[in-house]
């Protein structure tokens, strides 16, 4: 219950952190309500995965390392840079083919067969924003490490996720804008621009993290 309440009380901040990525993805999807619901669920799935990963890490290594100077910036910076590359590919290059930058991505894609990198943007965006060590998330992290066991830590993050996810209920309604085809173009371009913004943020965080460690 504690995790859920913490999620509910901080959900607005989570939405503020996530909308710059989620909204362009939803608009670029160009689908109706059902497709937007699917994209939102995939995004939330990525976030849940990020939260649970942290639940494991919080249980395994505890708070001191994660909150030590530099590590926070290193983790968030790396994640942001990976996300930014995906967003830029998704936003500025044609995703109707298997991949817009085959030379760069073939190494990643070979083991995964013909999976389109840009098709995984909602999950990756959810995961990256889920791993973002924003203030409410740090509160959740601090509370979860007190739990002691892995199951308690995971359960705490699950409840925290459910609490914050309530604020994403309106998101699929952006799918109602599908009648205006221009929104899809705007969404894709915005995703690319957001990618550039995240790349810069990630790079600065990463460099700052290296200096601090």
């Amino acid at each position: 219950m504690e995790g859920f309440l913490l999620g509910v009380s901080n959900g607005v901040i989570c939405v503020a952190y996530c909308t710059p990525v989620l909204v362009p993805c939803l608009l670029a999807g160009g689908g109706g309500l059902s497709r937007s619901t699917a994209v939102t669920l995939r995004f939330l799935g990525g976030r849940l995965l990020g939260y649970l990963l942290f639940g494991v890490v919080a249980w395994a290594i505890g708070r001191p390392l994660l909150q030590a100077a530099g590590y926070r910036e290193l983790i968030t910076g790396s994640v942001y840079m990976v996300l930014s590359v995906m967003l830029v590919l998704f936003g500025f290059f044609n995703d109707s083919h298997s991949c817009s930058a085959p030379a760069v991505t073939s190494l990643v894609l070979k083991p995964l067969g013909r999976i389109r990198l840009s098709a995984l943007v909602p999950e990756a965006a959810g995961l990256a924003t889920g791993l973002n060590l924003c203030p409410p998330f740090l509160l959740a992290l601090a509370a979860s490490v007190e739990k002691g066991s892995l199951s308690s830590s995971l359960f705490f993050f699950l409840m925290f996720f459910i609490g914050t996810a309530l604020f994403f209920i309106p998101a699929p309604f952006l799918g109602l804008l599908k009648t205006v085809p221009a929104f899809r173009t705007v969404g894709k371009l915005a995703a690319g621009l957001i990618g550039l913004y995240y790349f810069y943020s990630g790079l600065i965080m990463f460099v700052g993290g290296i200096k601090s460690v």
Partner: protein
Amino acid sequence: MKRDAKDASTVSSRQSPLRALLIALPMMFLTLLMLTAGKRPPDPPHVAALAITFVFFNLFFFLMVRTGKTDRYRAPLFITYAVAFVISFISRIIEIRGSMALTETNILQAQAPFCHIAIPMVLIPAALTKTIIYPGTIIGSFASISSMLILWIGASLSLGRGFCGWACFFGGLEDGFSRILKRPVIKRIGATWTYLPYAVLLLIVLTSAAAFSPTYCEWLCPFKTVTEYVQVTSLKTLIQAIIFLSLFLGLVVVLPILTKRRTQCGLFCPFGAFQSFTNKANVFDIRIDRDKCVKCGRCVRTCPTFSMNDASIAEGVSRITCMKCGKCVDTCPKGAISYHVKGTPHPGRSDRYRLLFLYPAFLFLATMAGGSIRDAILRIIKLVTTGSMV
């Protein structure tokens, strides 16, 4: 014969000198009122600056009415306005702060002047979060948020996106650069890029609300180069300065020269994208008479903001991004394009519709530009007589 066709658009709007003078008289009175604010100029330099500004404005308005050409006489005023604004603003900022640099202290003390480009970045997050994300003052000081908002509301109601063609104090810079070459070097620009301003708008609204900082002003404003810039004290501020300069050179200088378009306004400006929506609420639009149109494509090639295309011609109305500068109206060889008042017959009395638009548009231009041009003239007089503008 060719000349007759070329001037077809002008013939219907052309006025006799006496009639043009009568139409221009109310504007003379209004501009005098705006420029003097009911006070007598204190000294000869002020009298000279006022007289030059008054004559400059009213001569061009008279010519606009007399000849029936809109953009031909709007453009010199608009370009002069932008150059005068830069001269006046920089001089004033140096007087107040001692330099063009915006320091952290200025930001913490909310001393950043507010400009209209920041409006969507402030307005949309304010509606959602009840917080104004801008380091400026609401009322009272130089370039406060409320005074700009009031001007913007008035201009939006009367002009729609015409604000960008008649009142924006930056647009004239690229308008000027776009007129340097006789023919464009870059002729084709992908239609997808015309949606970029909406993407930039989405980006800045979302990131401003998320980060609680004016993202556009911090990172993307090309006009920081000619107004004020954040003092370079770190790697971050150095990157910001490089971005500002690159965007200014690219979008305001080089691309307008090469494309003969207003590329910053048409391909980047988030305020322009936001302002496009006000065209829906505004009573004026630009209509195309499909019976007269010979599909020569001249309007498509000359529109500064990519607001004319085959689809819009087929629909008989310019795109939502139209800033009503009148360039297409002036250049149409068949007089098929005209100003129009929504809800009235088309084609109707297009000369009257045009005059109905010109009054508020020109008055806004005179109101916004008058102070800057007069101040710039005063600064130049000061420079000549004392060797310093401040």
